[in-house]
């Protein structure tokens, strides 16, 4: 009976399904002799595939952050699919096993975004490591699919930061790629009006940032499933990352009226440097609020206003805004290696013996003490720099005392 309904759907719908499940295309091949039979067959097949994929979806409960794995596949030197030479059979690509159906569809519809997303992820990881370089948890990443380790399956502040910075990284990177011209479907084109159509000529279009946010939302959020507290918290933190990119943008203006006067003025928003986004998110990390599941979410189904939502654990605190990071679990102390939380501990970390802060040996080594050794360091000195790429330097060797946590 569903097949009948499906038969009434327009062509676009079929294309959607056909493209969504590459397996099927291979099963069917290209024998478009008798469209009616084919359509019927496809209908039946789709039913089957839909049922199957829904089953597999319910089995794979926790996909959250699975897509981060693409960063390691990309760094292995594999050529990423979807370059502007033409569509590449996506089934063959190992990175796509990590992606959900919806994510794959986005990648297919917007050639070039996979590279952009990967780059965004890389800069997010770099920024995360930089922001946390002096803390016990220094944003460790590993090979394989579990890029950030087990910390992501928890709900502590660090988890919140990882979700926010990766989401911000994707938004930032996609917006950047748009203005570089490496994603064709940006700005005007996603309105499906054709090249150089009336839109661009009539009112112009420069929504690179909007497109970045749209892709960020669609792509990143779609790896979250469920209705539990963790789901809500992750979504909130993803949103916070995107919002931070938006709010860190700065307006610049240019006057170009009569004789260059300001009677005519055009302004535009400038994408912030990613460091600024990282700084802002780090501030939010320090002021993150602990949240719980809202109470009135228990009697579900009574009305739409009862949709599950977050509220601060301490009722006297204000509701977290869309730019605040939220968490629901106390952070582990990250001192000793732990299999359960997946933290490597601080043994072997370099610390600063004079600092009283988090990077000081006392705090960083969790009171276990540290060993000091003299090390010869060769540094470049008396350099002349060019604006890029070229430095002429002398080598200077100095002896430094290095402190290492026990």
């Amino acid at each position, binding site marked *: 009976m*569903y097949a009948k309904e499906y038969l009434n759907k327009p062509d676009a719908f079929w294309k959607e399904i056909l493209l969504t499940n590459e397996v099927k295309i291979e099963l069917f091949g290209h024998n478009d002799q008798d469209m009616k039979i084919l359509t019927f067959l496809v209908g039946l097949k789709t*039913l089957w595939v*839909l*049922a199957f*994929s*829904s089953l597999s*979806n319910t089995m794979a409960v926790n996909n959250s952050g699975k897509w981060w794995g693409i960063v390691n596949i990309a760094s292995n030197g594999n050529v990423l699919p979807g370059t*502007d030479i033409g569509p590449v059979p996506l089934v063959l690509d190992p990175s796509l096993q990590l992606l959900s159906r919806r994510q794959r569809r986005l990648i297919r519809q917007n050639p070039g975004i996979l590279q952009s997303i990967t780059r965004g992820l890389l800069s997010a990881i770099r920024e995360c490591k*930089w922001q946390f370089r002096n803390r016990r948890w220094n944003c460790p990443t590993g090979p394989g699919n579990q890029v950030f380790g087990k910390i992501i399956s928890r709900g502590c502040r660090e988890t919140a930061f990882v979700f926010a910075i990766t989401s911000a990284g994707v938004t930032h990177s996609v917006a*950047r790629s748009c*203005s*570089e*011209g*490496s994603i*064709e479907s*940006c700005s*005007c084109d*996603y*309105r*499906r009006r054709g*090249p*150089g159509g*009336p*839109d*661009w*000529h*009539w*009112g*112009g*279009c*420069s*929504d*690179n940032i909007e497109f970045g946010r*749209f892709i960020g939302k669609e792509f990143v959020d779609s790896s979250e499933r469920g209705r539990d507290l963790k789901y809500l918290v992750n979504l909130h933190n993803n949103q916070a990352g995107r919002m931070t990119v938006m709010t860190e943008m700065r307006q*610049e203006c*240019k006057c*170009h009226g*009569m*004789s*260059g006067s*300001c*009677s*005519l*003025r*055009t*302004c*535009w928003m*400038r*994408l912030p*440097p990613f*460091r*600024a986004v990282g700084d802002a998110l780090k501030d939010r990390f320090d002021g993150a609020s602990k949240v719980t599941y809202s109470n009135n979410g228990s009697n579900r189904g009574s009305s739409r206003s009862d949709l599950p939502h977050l509220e601060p654990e301490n009722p006297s605190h204000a509701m977290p805004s869309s730019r605040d990071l939220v968490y629901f679990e106390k952070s582990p102390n990250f001192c000793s290696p732990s299999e359960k939380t997946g933290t490597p501990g601080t043994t072997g970390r370099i610390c600063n013996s004079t600092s009283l802060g988090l990077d000081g040996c006392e705090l960083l080594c969790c009171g276990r003490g540290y060993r000091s050794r003299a090390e010869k360091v060769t540094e470049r000195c008396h*350099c*002349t*720099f*060019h*604006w*890029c*790429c*070229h430095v002429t330097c002398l080598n200077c060797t100095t002896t430094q005392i290095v402190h290492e946590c026990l």
Partner: protein
Amino acid sequence: MSSDLSTLSLRKREEKDMADRHSWILDSRECHKLHCAAPKPTTSADFLAVKCVDIRKGNHGAPKWLIPWGRDRCASIRGFEEAASQEIYANDIVFSVHIPFQGQEMSPWFQFMLIILQLDIAFKLNNYIEDNAIVTLDVAMAYRDELSDPWTELARSVEQRKLQCAFHAPKTADNQGRSYECDVLPLIELGSVAHKYYLVNIRLPVHNVKKINMGIGEINDLHLVTIFQNGGFTKVWFAMKTFLTPSILIIMIWYWRRITMMTRSPVLLEKIIFALGISMTFINLPVEWFSIGFNWTWMLLFGDIRQGLFYVMLLSFWIIFCGEHMMDQSERNRISVYWKQVVPIAFGSCCLFIFDMCERGVQLKNPFYSIWTTDVGAELAMAFIIVAGICACLYFLFLCFMVYQVFRNISGKQSSLPAMSKARRLHYEGLIFRFKFLMIITLACAALTTVFFITTQVSEGNWKWGEYNIELNSAFFTGIYGMWNLYVFALMFLYAPSHKNYGDDQTNGGAAVSSAEELQLTTTITHADGPTELYRLAGKEAQE
């Protein structure tokens, strides 16, 4: 059954997905439809330059154009960390920008194109921006009209721009890698957009000995922001001009016919109103239509000149209008009487004209030129602008003084009005009425213009009005433009001399006007042969 259920739930989700996507598309389309109704006057597009690597060593031979994307795209690097390992040097890097983006075309409807350069410079302790750093750019621009055509050079130049950057964090090792905040640098101004595709190639050549591009910090990215007029706005604007031209032209002809019907020669005030009409028509004339077909790069300059001419006329008109309503018994029917007020106008506008020729005039030859980039040029430009500003202040002082004098005379006359004979009284009442009337509408127009101007400066963007998204700026521009057209129209309509005689006044008034008064009237009134429309209105009012 269970499979049915799961299919159902899945289908629901699928539908939700589709709905989400649709709502997004619909959303953007809808907002776009409203944009269509009122597009912004100008658009900006931000282009991030692709860092191409020019593999040919020595850069000799025919200029080679490096394209950022597409089939013949250049060999490029992502970031400059890659470059060091690949033995690529600063002189091999070419920043390449293709305008517009993939799948879009430029069009003559965009009227002009300004390109602004933005540099992302990171702070490094040992590689920082020196004081008064100057960046030297080897810029080349090319165009083509078909994607398969070869590129044709449009302009090429070596330009210097001053880097004005600030670093807000303390300059410590911890803050390495943070970005400077740099002022935008004007790069190119094109007075017409005649081609479909443009390509900009920028090199930042480095020379150790000549100290070229040394001490400019570590450049991470180069952005080009392109500003052009929206095609939709151009169309609305053209339509408006095309509609306004005949209306002003017709009223001008009517006005001049009225004047020629008089037995006397036209007086100064009439001449200046007519001149104002001519300058308004000059602005209105939709010459821009030709820019669609012809590559007229001087349109920006021409627009400035037209606008300047209108301002000169308007300012002169206000002075003369005040003078002619002074109501003291002196003869003023010559422009030379007003030299004190006209000289600042002429001098100020000359200054602005020279400045404009130095900026936009030279840009016709070299689109990369800007008077502000050199110290001498910037001082010269500043001097011109300051002189023009002083002239404007002088002018407004004179104008205010004259308005004050007129009001003083009016209050003097008003006290003696009842004692006057009817014809004289009517005459003075008419003068007072029409002066006050013009004062009010002029002040209203000026106030509206100022308010609109300030609003456009303060609030960028649009204004939600119920469901409609109103583009404030374009509304303001068209509104102000229409308003001043209406102002000129009203001037010509209301201040046209009447060809009718005092006829009915005489019959009603009865009493003959003494010859002494008659004489006085002819000297003071600029329209001795008959009252204007307004005068007649005032007269009728007075009779009732």
